[in-house]
């Protein structure tokens, strides 16, 4: 256990900011007076998530794959072959990494197929599994068509694959928004206060992050002349991500502190810096210079990674400190008592 609660009386109230400073706050002026709450020796009420780095890493690779698939389908329809190839290959590669991350994070990886026993709308993970399965079929076919060696192009299977590539790519693009957004629902549908209370904003943060990273990868892989849609998608994505993030931070509840303090705050601030920098370059220099486009793309990818780890960290932190559970629930009870 943490040393935090060991010497505290079992029901001893303490400031909800978790500090061990004297209650008069002599060292630092707080804007909000610390709410006092009781707990069982300062121990957590909730279980911290058992998910480790692989899950936020998957949130990134899954979003990246979805953003890439959308760009590939658009490029296919508008005659941008290099952007199409970049999107399909980038989408397939990040999908393969995603599949590894998801299976490896299970307690029993060999039982991954048990996910396909049921389809449950109340479980975003179940819904996501089915979306990902449908998406994977399209993304796999479209990506395979790009990898077809020239010697096989004229053969019957080769011709079939090339003919199937466009419908497969469009199919992947149809499921891609689901792939990019369901991960936010997955986090929101938990008891972790920071995730659950951000259920309205997280989907926009996550789809925005997917668009930004997909655009970023395409800016790295495709020539400047074809990468216009990638740059525009990245700019829109970063905007959605930053607006969503800022809205989360403006929630009145205590849960906000999980985002605005500690490691989550540092990760998310860094993500915002990279995203803003990447967006600024994407909208200006990256339209002429491939070097600038690659730099902007890398910044956007980094911003997306940090955003996923930042939101993940906030949720984990909100399960480890009982204040995030007790204080908002006490406030809710008090508000209910006043209206009755």
């Amino acid at each position, binding site marked *: *256990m943490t040393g935090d609660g*060991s010497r505290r*009386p*079992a*029901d001893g109230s303490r400031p909800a900011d978790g500090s061990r400073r004297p209650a008069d706050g002599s060292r630092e002026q707080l804007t909000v007076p610390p709410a006092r709450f*009781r*707990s*069982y*020796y300062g121990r957590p*009420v*909730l*279980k911290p998530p*058992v*998910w480790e780095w692989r899950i936020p890493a998957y949130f990134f690779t899954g979003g990246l794959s979805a953003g890439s698939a*959308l760009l590939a389908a*658009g490029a296919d329809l*508008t*005659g941008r072959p290099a952007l199409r190839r970049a999107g399909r290959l980038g989408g397939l590669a990040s999908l393969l990494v995603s599949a590894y991350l998801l299976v490896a994070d299970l*307690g*029993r990886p060999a*039982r991954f197929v*048990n*996910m396909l*026993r*049921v389809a*449950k*709308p109340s479980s*975003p*993970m179940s819904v996501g599994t089915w979306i990902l399965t449908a998406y994977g079929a399209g993304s796999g076919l479209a990506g395979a068509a790009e990898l077809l060696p020239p010697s096989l192009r004229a053969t019957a299977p080769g011709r079939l694959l090339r003919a199937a590539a466009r419908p497969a790519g469009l199919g992947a693009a149809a499921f*891609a*928004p689901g792939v990019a*957004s369901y991960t*936010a*629902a997955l986090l929101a*549908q*938990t*008891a972790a206060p920071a995730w*659950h209370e951000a*259920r309205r*904003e997280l*989907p*926009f943060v996550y789809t925005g992050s997917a*668009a930004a990273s997909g655009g970023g990868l395409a800016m790295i892989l495709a020539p400047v*002349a*074809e990468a*216009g*849609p*990638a740059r525009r*998608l990245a700019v829109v994505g970063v905007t*959605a991500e930053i607006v969503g993030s800022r809205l989360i931070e403006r929630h009145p*509840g205590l849960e906000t502190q999980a985002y605005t303090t500690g490691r989550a705050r540092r990760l998310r601030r860094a993500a915002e810096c990279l995203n803003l920098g990447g967006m600024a370059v994407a909208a200006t220099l990256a339209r002429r210079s491939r070097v600038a486009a690659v730099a902007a793309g890398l910044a956007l990818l980094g911003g997306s990674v940090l955003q996923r780890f930042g939101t993940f960290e906030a*949720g984990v932190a909100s399960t480890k400190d009982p204040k995030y*559970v*007790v204080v908002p*629930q*006490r*406030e*809710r*009870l008090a*508000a209910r008592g006043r209206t009755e």
Partner: protein
Amino acid sequence: MTHEPVTHEHSLYGPLADPAADAGHLDHPPRVGFFTDTSVCIGCKACEVACKEWNNVPEDGLNLLGMSFDNTGMLGASSWRHVAFIEQERPLGQQDAGLTGLPVGPSATAPVDLGLPSPGLPGRTPGEHQRTEFRWLMASDVCKHCTHAGCLDVCPTGALFRTEFGTVVVQQDICNGCGYCVSACPYGVIDRRADDGRAWKCTLCYDRLRGDLEPACAKACPTQSIQFGPLDELRERAAQRLDELHEAGVPEARLYGHDPGDGVGGDGAFFLLLDEPEVYGLPPDPVVPTRDLLTTWKYTGLAAAALLGAAVSAFLGRRPR
């Protein structure tokens, strides 16, 4: 707080008379559960031991937590009953701890120097402000077997299911250890075993129930602090017990988890507590995350549509040369 548009489908949230029938059990026995009356708990931990023995639950770390007589800490994958110990500087009801008549100040016998490194000799410290009233709270915590169980709602394999008794059980041959249930439980009950990779929690002794036996913890409880039976009967008995305690001068007695109108539709295992729930490590107003399912999917759908729209509009405008 903001007002939530709650769903009216009882399967997801709100009072639900018969969760077993809601889960598809047509002809089923009455819903059973636990009423844990903590006012008579003596902290013997027989429930913890009986549970471990019957269910073959492995050892959960032999740690001294250094905070009370509680070295279990909290419920987990390998602790399906957990006895909490809380020492407080107040009397239990009108009980007299018998301390007021005792002498205060230096010990009656002369202090002896034992050669131990300490700031003062034993017995020489003034005892006056240590003579306080006190009481011990002890409570045996367990999985709540919620009417609306967050763990069950999110399980993507169907390993977690609602039994014919209205309880919630993990099928260990199906669980693939995704860990979603761990984060969906508003009570922090279910957890994944590190060595085994699967999620585990109290089964309310599903095997014993099917053999018409009461769960091992209730069987072992020497004071009937843990009472097992049909939930309706338990709720009546709990209401009576609460009245008795209030009449006996224990106004702080309260029920927890008994109300079908609460955030989880009422618990299958509920409690009589002598202080606020959070003092025992219980959430004061738990809500199943599924309550907000429709809101979550609505905003997720909006965000997905926005992404599709953004992608389409990114390709509008100038064509490549």
